[in-house]
């Protein structure tokens, strides 16, 4: 610890260089924390999907419908407590760029299956009694300045035309991974106004026991194998995860960017450390002449490198944490987005590794420096 002042004095020797290196590490680690959090948030969303709910979709793809007649047959399955269904609407409000999720749900069965989506009872009552009523997430209400009772009109992308709605309720998600920017309305309305073009997009099944999930899913898919529309059934968690496998390549992509940033910053840091150490060859030789051992000198150079990158890393990850914990537009783009403590820990570990790798060569050079030759060069 008594050598800390020596390390500190060396860091202050060229303040601008130290600050620039620290900041470049900070920027890199900020980027890392952000990219990493995209992945952890996606993974987190997949994990909170319920294990006691099954989702049944058309084998071909979720955009292909399923017959309504399946409802009764699904209800009759052993182990299935309740069934509901929904369909993707894909409506646009004013600006098509300003995307949000909109879908039709079977109102009698949907809300009981999703206790995590809370709607005040009087609002739900009002909604139930009105054909064009909608229930909207608080995020969306805020984004467009809507109030309960407002009439809004969405343009259909799948089912053409203008679709008038009246907002009758605002839901609240009790887990942070449920999107708070969704727009939901009666499936009956969709069915009737689309001239019975709209069918069931997916069925949601409530199981009595999550342990039954694999058996029930298999029984369902076997039952419909040779029907007009064959099915694919999985737990909601697996279903969410399959959505995310569409993001799978995104994960690879993000990791690749992260790796590139890592090496770029490693080169920056290593270059700085080498420059710093080369300038000090004589000083290192003098310290050795005074009796400073090879290991001690190695440690001093290493400490300097590690302090710079750790400090930069700390600034970067904490900045990301603070920025994304404040309410940002990012939140509606990806619900539950936040920089977790494990990500911060990992970021700091990476910063430390960068520091140790960047410091290794100059530290070895300092340790192996032949004193007499180094002193001769200047003396």
């Amino acid at each position: 610890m008594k050598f800390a002042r020596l390390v500190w004095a060396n860091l202050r020797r060229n303040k601008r260089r130290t600050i620039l290196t620290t900041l470049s590490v900070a920027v890199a680690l900020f980027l890392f924390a952000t990219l990493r959090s995209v992945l952890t948030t996606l993974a987190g969303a997949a994990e909170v999907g319920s294990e006691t709910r099954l989702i049944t979709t058309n084998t071909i793809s979720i955009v292909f419908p399923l017959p309504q007649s399946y409802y009764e047959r699904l209800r009759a399955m052993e182990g299935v407590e309740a069934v509901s269904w929904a369909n993707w609407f894909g409506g646009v409000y004013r600006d098509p760029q300003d995307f949000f999720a909109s879908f039709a749900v079977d109102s009698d069965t949907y809300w009981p299956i999703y206790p995590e989506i809370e709607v005040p009872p009087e609002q739900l009552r009002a909604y139930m009694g009105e054909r064009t009523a909608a229930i909207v997430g608080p995020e969306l209400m805020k984004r467009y300045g809507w109030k309960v009772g407002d009439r809004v009109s969405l343009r259909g992308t799948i089912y053409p035309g203008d679709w008038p709605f009246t907002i009758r309720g605002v839901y609240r998600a009790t887990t942070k991974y449920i999107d708070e920017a969704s727009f939901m309305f009666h499936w009956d309305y969709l069915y009737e106004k689309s001239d019975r073009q709209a069918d069931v997009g997916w069925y949601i099944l409530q199981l009595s026991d999550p342990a039954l999930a694999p058996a029930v899913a298999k029984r369902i898919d076997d039952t419909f194998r040779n029907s007009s529309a064959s099915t694919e059934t999985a737990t909601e968690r697996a279903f969410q995860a399959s959505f995310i496998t569409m993001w799978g390549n995104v994960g690879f992509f993000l990791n690749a960017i992260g790796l590139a940033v890592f090496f770029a910053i490693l080169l920056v840091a290593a270059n700085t450390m080498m420059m710093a150490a080369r300038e000090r060859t004589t000083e290192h030789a003098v310290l050795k002449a005074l009796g400073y051992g090879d290991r001690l000198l190695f440690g001093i150079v290493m400490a300097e490198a590690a302090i710079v990158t750790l400090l930069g890393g700390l600034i970067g990850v904490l900045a990301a944490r603070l920025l994304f914990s404040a309410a940002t537009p990012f939140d509606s783009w990806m619900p539950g987005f936040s920089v977790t403590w494990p990500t911060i820990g990992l970021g700091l570990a990476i910063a430390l590794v960068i520091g140790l790798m960047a410091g290794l060569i100059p530290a070895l050079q300092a340790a192996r420096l032949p004193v007499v030759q180094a002193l001769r060069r200047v003396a």
Partner: protein
Amino acid sequence: MALVEVRGLTKTYQRDAQVIPVLENLDLDIEKGEFMALMGPSGSGKSTLLNLLAGLDHPTSGSIRVEGQEVSGMSSRQLATWRSRHVGFIFQRYNLLPVLTAFQNVELPLLLTSLSKKERRDHVHTSLNVVGLADRVDHYPRQLSGGQEQRVGIARAIVSDPTLILADEPTGDLDAVAGDEILTLLERLNSEFGKTIVMVTHDPRAADRSHRIMHLEKGVLTR
């Protein structure tokens, strides 16, 4: 028994296939409390001999004993520890660390000891007092004159109370007046504090301040 006993000391450098003999079968005794000057033409091996005495380099053959302890056979690691306890080195170019104050520069050798912070501070102040720089403790090297820098260098060399003080042309970069002050200081360290000093110099007037002058020429020592 002399404080330093050099026996059959040989140092050769190898450059490619060529072997360059610098010191050949050299014998030398240095008594405790002696102030010795080492003279000789450039390239005669004065610095090489001083570096060997300081344990900065390994001899090709022969032995160096300091206080009866064989130095020539030590590993690099043992040598580093030995240097920190027994050798105070004074450089021609002062070689202070520019980022540290006079105080911190002088403290450097003490960081290797187990002294407490307060003990270290007392030692540093004593050393800076001896060299007459008590009022310059917080100055950085760039704020000091060459002569003052060298005095900080001397304070650094004596702060751990080493067995031997070795100086390689300590006045080489200084004008006559500043050089004279340094020589007076070295004389005092020798007479007042009983320090054993070996000083390499080109300047006969500087050499005259010592007790004994040795000449090194073509690898051989003469009086």
